[in-house]
């Protein structure tokens, strides 16, 4: 920083030199530059302010003129490329055109504005856009549940493989033990922490399920099958002890939201996998990019749904201890999501 007097002087001289340079321009390209330089510098000042996030310092006039100045610069650049051999000026124009382009075509709305539009129709529209993949994912989940049930019914030793080792819940547990896993959780006091943990865990799994769609969708399919296979095995287990309805209600209170979210995440993964494997008329890249843009809002929705599911699982399931009430809440949530996705705003 010791050379600041020199730098200040150099800057001053630079300004002075530019004033001198106005008079004797002999080249047509220099006269072209002189005539437009003021507008370029004005655009540069606006662009710099936007880049630095100092939007308030930009006057209304400048903001209104931004598109005009940008278009003028675009035409200046096009002319300069054809008529000027001043490499420094061309480099300046190229860079400024890019910066202005980034501003003009950067993410325009702030996330808040986008998010409100997302809640008021963008989300359900995105879900409806992949309804074919949702049907495929639903079929896979139903098949997974059936397969899980049949595998354990055929040989109970598959249970540990499908649903994991659990001392309280396995084919050797008595009906009383199983019943205890479903009821009597009200006196737990770490519910909020439990809800937060469930949300974090499930959301990460859902994001994984979606992201793996990139590998032509196969891992998404496997994750769907594995999750529903586990559900099938547990259904079989509780059915055998006459607790099927109670277990269904225990699952349904948060499951209608959580399983729906997993279904959507899997459908998103399948959609992307399908777009990469069968791009149709588009190039693979264009097809993948279009699919990604279609499914990204669905995934944001999945995360929100899992937040709701985490709360339902952490609080509602523990606090509501009767099967009819649990079924009621679960059924209400399912109806709510179905109406929101497929009735709300669908007028085509």
């Amino acid at each position, binding site marked *: 920083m010791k050379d600041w007097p020199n730098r200040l002087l150099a800057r001053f001289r630079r300004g002075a030199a530019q004033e001198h*340079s106005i008079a*004797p321009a002999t080249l047509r390209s220099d006269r072209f530059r002189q005539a437009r330089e003021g507008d370029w*510098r004005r655009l540069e000042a606006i662009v710099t302010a936007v880049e630095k996030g100092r939007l308030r310092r930009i006057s209304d006039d400048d903001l209104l003129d931004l598109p005009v100045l940008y278009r003028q610069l675009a035409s200046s650049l096009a002319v300069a490329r054809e008529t000027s051999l001043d490499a420094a000026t061309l480099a300046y124009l190229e860079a400024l055109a890019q910066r202005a382009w980034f501003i003009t075509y950067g993410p325009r709305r702030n996330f808040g504005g986008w998010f409100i539009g997302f809640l008021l129709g963008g989300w359900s529209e995105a879900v409806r856009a992949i309804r074919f993949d949702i049907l495929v994912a639903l079929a896979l989940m139903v098949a997974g549940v059936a397969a899980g049930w049949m595998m354990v019914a055929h040989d109970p030793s598959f249970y540990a493989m499908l649903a994991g080792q659990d001392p309280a819940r396995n084919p050797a547990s008595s009906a009383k033990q199983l019943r205890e896993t479903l009821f009597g959780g009200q006196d737990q006091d770490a519910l909020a922490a439990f809800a937060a943990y469930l949300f974090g865990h499930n959301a990460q799994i859902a994001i994984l399920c979606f992201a793996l769609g*990139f590998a032509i969708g196969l891992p998404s399919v496997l994750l769907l099958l594995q999750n529903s296979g586990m559900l099938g095995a547990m259904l079989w287990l509780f059915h055998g002890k006459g607790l099927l309805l109670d277990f269904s209600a225990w699952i349904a209170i948060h499951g209608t939201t959580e399983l729906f979210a997993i279904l959507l995440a899997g459908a998103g993964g399948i959609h992307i996998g399908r777009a990469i494997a069968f791009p149709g008329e588009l190039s693979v890249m264009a097809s993948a990019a279009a699919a990604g843009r279609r499914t990204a809002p669905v995934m944001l929705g999945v995360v929100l749904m899992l937040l709701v599911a985490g709360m339902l699982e952490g609080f509602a399931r523990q606090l509501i201890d009767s099967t009819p009430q649990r079924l009621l809440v679960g059924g209400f949530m399912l109806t709510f999501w179905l109406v929101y996705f497929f009735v709300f705003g669908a007028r085509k």
Partner: protein
Amino acid sequence: MSPQSHLRPDQREIITPEGLSLRLTLAGRSARLGALAVDLACIGAILLGAGLALVYTQAGLGQWAKRGEAHHAAQFLFILWTALMFLLRNAWFLIFELGPRGATPGKRMLGLRIAARDGARLTTEMVLARNLLRDIEIFLPMVAVLSALGGPSSSMVNWAAAGWFLLFALFPLFNRDRLRAGDMIAGTWVVEAPRARLEQALSAHEAPIDYDFGPAELGIYGEYELQTLERVLRENQAPAMEAVARAICAKIGWSAPQGDEVRRFLDAYYTALRARLEQGLRFGRRKADKHDGQQP
């Protein structure tokens, strides 16, 4: 001559909605790795700081008079921690890339930003999509490799998993546009954020030009030599300028200028040559360099 022919291997041309062609320079792989390292270091530092703060708060809770309250407070801390982990892992990149600069602090530091590949607007959906895949590109490969390396349980299965996830992590090495898997899904790419100052015009002089170059003297050089000359003049180093002046004079059969005259001679030659080449441009004739046979 289309601008296409000027593209370097790491440059791509896009057409903006106004029909303007822009030359974007793809971000280097090492620069992107550096940017990622900066971001991960930031995340790590925040986690470390927050973790320490939480541990100290937790320790302080022990002195609480009523046990129940301490318990609730500890629960609240746990929720805070879970939320922070989730946000840092998933929202750090998202929030910064949605801003006006389209770049995380790491990218900003290394002069990079993201842009839409088709030249149109960078949308919220694109930024969401490219960041949803970060998990399988960064965190899972790290976990997989660490679990394959460490512990007695390391086995073929672990290495197979690590290899599978490394495919995602190393994706940018295997394609021309250096796209991450997330870039591919979102239709984005990472480019250099351009910076250039408007330099003073070299061809505008205060003093009148007292050199007179004829077509024979100006016809030997093309655009390449003109721009080399421009660079030498802007750098303004006396030995380089003398060497260039000698080379030009040897070519056109003049005696080389000395001392202060060197700069005046080169300025005059630059202006005259540029005037001639630009005149040629207007008539649709382009002379790329001295070997270009087409006389302007």
